[in-house]
């Protein structure tokens, strides 16, 4: 006697930069199925022109980030049984980013803001000198380490309401990385970076809702990092150094 395969009702956003809509597909359920499995099944069996991104499919690269039932997640690490509301899934591209096509978001603005925040390392020593000694459990290094595991997946950026409300806001990821560099004694651009992150699109835009921390797949807390930047900026301002 053949068992009937239970089906999932999956609404996937299809469209372009000019607009789009949700199309519903019936997808057979399987054990240990992830949302990425579902999207791949739809592309292979129902919609060969469905555009979506993935790479490692084991929760290391962050490429597969999409909005699943209203929340930004890594689809390769999201088990269907954990999120399907009564056998229904809704999959859309990441929020706060322009759409390229279907489930593919354009990450250029995300990376541009990374640069605007000066969130890149500015070396001070050369190979001719001794490497700088860093004490691993110093307060600064501990603060940097707590925030260093960011892989730029943009889930926090998509989760952030402050980004949605202010398109100029640099966002949790860029500011989180800037914080790690502000705590790096080897970095030579800390004064300039503080100006970049305390300015108009900077840390003052964060309202501490912690949507970023709630959704970060690596368990990071950009709100805490941004609070650190706020403290640094306030101190610098009071000392006349901002």
């Amino acid at each position, binding site marked *: 006697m053949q068992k009937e395969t239970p089906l999932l009702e999956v609404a996937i956003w299809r469209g372009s930069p000019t607009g789009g809509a949700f199309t519903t597909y019936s997808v057979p359920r399987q054990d240990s199925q992830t949302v990425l499995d579902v999207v791949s099944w739809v592309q292979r069996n129902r919609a060969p022109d469905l555009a979506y991104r993935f790479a490692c499919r084991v929760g290391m690269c962050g490429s597969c980030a999409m909005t699943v039932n209203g929340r930004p997640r890594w689809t390769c690490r999201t088990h269907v049984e954990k999120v399907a509301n009564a056998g229904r899934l809704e999959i859309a591209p990441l929020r706060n980013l322009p759409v390229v096509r279907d489930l593919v978001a354009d990450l250029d603005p995300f990376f541009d803001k990374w640069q605007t925040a000066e969130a890149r390392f500015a070396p001070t020593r050369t190979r001719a000198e001794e490497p700088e000694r860093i004490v691993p459990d110093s307060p600064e290094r501990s603060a940097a380490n707590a925030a260093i595991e960011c892989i730029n997946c943009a889930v926090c950026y998509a989760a952030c309401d402050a980004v949605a409300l202010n398109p100029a806001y640099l966002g949790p990821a860029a500011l989180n990385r800037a914080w790690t560099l502000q705590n790096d004694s080897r970095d030579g651009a800390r004064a300039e970076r503080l100006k970049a992150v*305390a*300015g*108009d699109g*900077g840390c*003052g835009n964060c309202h501490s809702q912690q949507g970023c921390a709630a959704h970060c797949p690596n368990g990071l807390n950009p709100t805490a990092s941004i609070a650190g930047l*706020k403290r640094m900026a*306030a101190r610098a*301002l009071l000392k006349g150094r*901002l």
Partner: protein
Amino acid sequence: MLSARLYLAQRISALVMAPLVLGHLAVTIVAVRGGLDAAEILGRTRGSLLWGGFYGLFVLAVSVHAAIGLRAIVAEHLGLRGRGLDIFTWATMAGLLLTGGRAVAAVVL
């Protein structure tokens, strides 16, 4: 560095107001007992340097705080930016300082 200054002004005015709000809450809760009466309130506040200073400081702090708070709201929900946003902020602060200062004068003088 306007945004950093606004951020600091917001936090400082909030800290200044914390004890003032608690005092004001206590005063209203006590004053409202048995019904509000103009003569009763004014009898307490007229000619009082203490009440003048207390509420004068309150008006100053709240004018700064509310202007910056409303600035965030109109910028984020109404999309107001640039000069228009600055004019709105200053106008709000001025409006609250004027009406608030007048109210303090009204009950203290």
